[in-house]
């Protein structure tokens, strides 16, 4: 354990802050349709929350939250959500990613809005999973996990 991980202040602050960072990430993803934000930004913020947790509490604690296999599943799930949305538009007779073709609601603009939100969620899931897996893969082995590098 290095100095930064022993500090009670840092551990307490991180424990309190991480849920709020994750909530903010979800806000950024869901707000992407109507303001600044989107899947890429929100996914990076969510991944940063998990990385912050793993930096302070150790890699093994972080992997308890999101394990390697779950992380891989997440990364492919996000891309699948995006591609499946595009394919659903083909099934309903439109072109690839032509959202207005899906007869979900009578208002085609509203259908497009919700499907754009779905696509943003897919992007966010992929980005956060890749962020977390990058951090875990380049972090030092568990025996010296106290020396977490930037």
């Amino acid at each position, binding site marked *: 354990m290095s100095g930064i991980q022993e500090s009670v202040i840092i551990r307490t602050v991180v424990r309190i802050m991480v849920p709020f960072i994750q909530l903010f990430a979800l806000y950024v993803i869901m707000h992407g*349709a*109507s303001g600044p934000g989107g899947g890429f930004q929100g996914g990076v913020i969510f991944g940063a929350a998990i990385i912050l947790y793993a930096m302070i509490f150790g890699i093994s604690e972080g992997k308890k939250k999101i394990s*390697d296999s779950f992380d891989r599943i997440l990364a492919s799930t996000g891309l699948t959500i995006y591609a499946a949305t595009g394919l659903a538009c083909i099934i309903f007779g439109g072109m690839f990613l032509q959202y207005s073709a899906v007869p979900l609601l009578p208002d*085609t603009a509203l259908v*497009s*809005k919700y499907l*754009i939100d779905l696509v943003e969620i897919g992007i966010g899931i992929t980005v956060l999973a890749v962020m977390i897996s990058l951090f875990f*893969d380049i972090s030092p082995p568990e025996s010296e996990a106290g020396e977490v590098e930037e």
Partner: protein
Amino acid sequence: MKALALFVVVITGAMLIYAGQDLPAFGDINSPSYQAPMTQYFINNSLEESGVPNIVTALLANYRGYDTLGETAVIFTAGMAVILLLRRRET
């Protein structure tokens, strides 16, 4: 060597600042990018066509949705490549 690097950085920065003087001002209504026909089209039609008030998101996810799918695939592929090359396996 350090002096040469500093010289290159300073010269490049000076050139960029000099070139930056010619950029249109922020929010300039006469700038070429604002006057382009596509810009006018997106400003006028993106809300009705895509349903999202944010024109950037409408472009990213609707008009250029295929491009964004490719970007997501690039990030996914990069992550998978890092897993393949750098992940330590328990032996």
